[in-house]
């Protein structure tokens, strides 16, 4: 008896299949519409479609506000990716391999940004940058980058920590036994084994930052990131049409990064699995 048979009858399976197809269509419909409207030759985002054009794209490329904000977004996202991954790697290694006290409390602290509502974190940081008079901390890209690292850190730790914990301690002992120092062991054994999860962590931190709008709408000064620019523009439907093309391109990009992160995560699992 095949396992499907016990759980589900033939007609029910057909109904479910239809539902599944409809579900996927609805799931991807909004994205598809955005791409469609990025070629629509009209100032309003409404039906019917008037005609096809690429002038929105050429407008976007020639709009310095859009170009600058996209550049800012990428700069912050790359920086956040690197910083969050490095800090997450260090913290994960310490949590996985040393017998420090308060391990539970520190792990909990690392996960707090996951549950604190972003809007609350945003206003907390806003008070910090506006009222604390800390050097270098003014509303702007740096403050936003710091906020994004706080947001992304739990994800990088959640991706890296299990991988390090899964590495058999005896691999490190074997390396020591063969004469390797702590640093040599980390560089030649640990690092190669967790590279895929490091890349996945970087990508997740990158996605977290490049798509983040709540912190951005509170913490930025004159310079904008793309989501902040978009968020401001989308609230006024009459200007929205001009924003769609880059948005479509960004969606495709984030599809690719999301897919890439997942593929890397799985490859990392397989690489460790082969060690057994």
């Amino acid at each position: 008896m095949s396992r499907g048979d016990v759980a589900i009858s033939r007609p029910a399976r057909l109904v479910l299949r239809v539902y599944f197809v409809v579900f996927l269509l609805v799931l991807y419909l909004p994205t598809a519409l955005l791409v469609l409207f990025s070629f629509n030759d009209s100032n309003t985002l409404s039906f019917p479609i008037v005609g096809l054009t690429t002038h929105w794209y050429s407008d976007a490329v020639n709009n310095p506000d859009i170009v600058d904000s996209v550049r800012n977004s990428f700069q912050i996202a790359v920086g956040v990716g690197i910083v969050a991954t490095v800090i997450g790697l260090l913290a994960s290694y310490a949590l996985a391999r040393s017998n420090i006290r308060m391990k539970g409390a520190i792990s909990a602290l690392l996960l707090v940004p996951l549950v604190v509502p972003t809007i609350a974190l945003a206003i907390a940081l806003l008070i910090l940058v506006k009222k604390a008079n800390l050097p270098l901390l003014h509303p702007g890209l740096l403050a936003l980058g710091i906020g994004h690292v706080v947001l992304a850190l739990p994800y990088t730790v959640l991706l890296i920590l299990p991988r390090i914990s899964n590495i058999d301690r005896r691999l490190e002992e074997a390396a020591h036994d063969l004469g390797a120092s702590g640093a040599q062991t980390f560089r030649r054994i640990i690092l190669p084994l967790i590279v895929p999860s490091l890349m996945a962590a970087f990508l997740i931190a990158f996605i977290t930052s490049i798509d983040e709008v709540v912190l951005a709408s509170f913490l930025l000064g004159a310079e904008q990131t793309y989501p902040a620019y978009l968020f401001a523009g989308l609230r006024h439907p009459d200007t929205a049409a001009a924003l769609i093309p880059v948005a479509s391109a960004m969606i495709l990009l984030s599809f690719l990064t999301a897919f890439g992160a997942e593929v890397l995560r799985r490859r990392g699992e397989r690489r460790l699995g082969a060690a057994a």
Partner: protein
Amino acid sequence: MGTDAPVGGIVIDAVTKMFDEFKAVDDISFEIRDGEFFTMLGPSGCGKTTTLRMIAGFEEPTAGRILLRGQDVTYVPPAKRNVNMVFQAYALFPHMTVWDNIAFGLQIKKVPRGEVGPRVEEAIRTVRLGGFEKRKPGQLSGGQQQRVALARALVNRPAALLLDEPLGALDLKLRKELQLELKHLQTETRTTFVYVTHDQEEALTMSDRIAVMKDGLVEQIATPRELYERPATSFVAGFIGVSNIIHLRVDRHEAGVAVMELGDGERITAATTATSGTLEVTVRPEKIRLGAGADAGRTGMTAVSGVVNDVIYLGSMTQLMVELRTGEELVVHRLNDESEVDVSVGARVVLQWPAENAYVIGPGRAPVGAGVGGNGGESAITEGA
């Protein structure tokens, strides 16, 4: 072999290891000689792996010293000790090829490039892994991984090779093959092997000497044969092979043989110097004969009747469980080609063995061993330096 060489080997000197409140190793002392195949044998939790890890440097003793070739290495980190370990489940680096795994130790030690190649190739040849250099550990069978682990350790030419249950993950047939191979490898490379296992058969097959451990203590150190035939404690007797332990009340002592009279001409005998009291005696199942033989009346021959409680067919032989009139039960092995006595359940049989085949455990044992060879004749534990 470097027997009694002053600088040779590994000395464990009054070593104790505590894990919090738990005493894993309790003040043990012994010496492992240069070039020998030394096995630490015992049930899990007996302290054998902890001892091995202290020799490797992964654990620091709570008290005591460890000497390697005369040099105190008690607090030397593993990376700086000239011993190498073959880990349980091998701990091969999964992201490196066989060649890179084996070359790892040499590269770390900055051995000149021109020397690394030949040494790695030699190690690969020694463990017969030619043709697998470019494979990753995940693409090898268990036995092949085991060989890579051996080569990775041996290529460094360690003063001693430490093996932590290296065959534990393999199936029985492969294990038997590799036991012989390991023994050959050890003889060939003349490297000291310190081997940890809980499998007594494995220990008996390969070792020059075996330390039987229990609860952090060494029960006995001896050659395999001596362990089997002359166990120092009832635990050793029980752990090595099938043990038959009976209690012998010394009623009579004549010509180096203690005799317990059971009436009706039945008696149990054992060779010993003890002239009174009750002795613990062990008789190996295959040394017990069924039925009255020609020399039944000989002085010192045991003759005791019992009832067969169980008959278990084991292929080449049959195992009988015989309950004596003393209430004790003995395991008896019969080769299946002798068929003169009826051995169905409930049958009454007579068991016989010469006094010298009954070995008295602990104090009161016979002064002279019958045909014990090798170099482990003296008392078990070598005093530390």
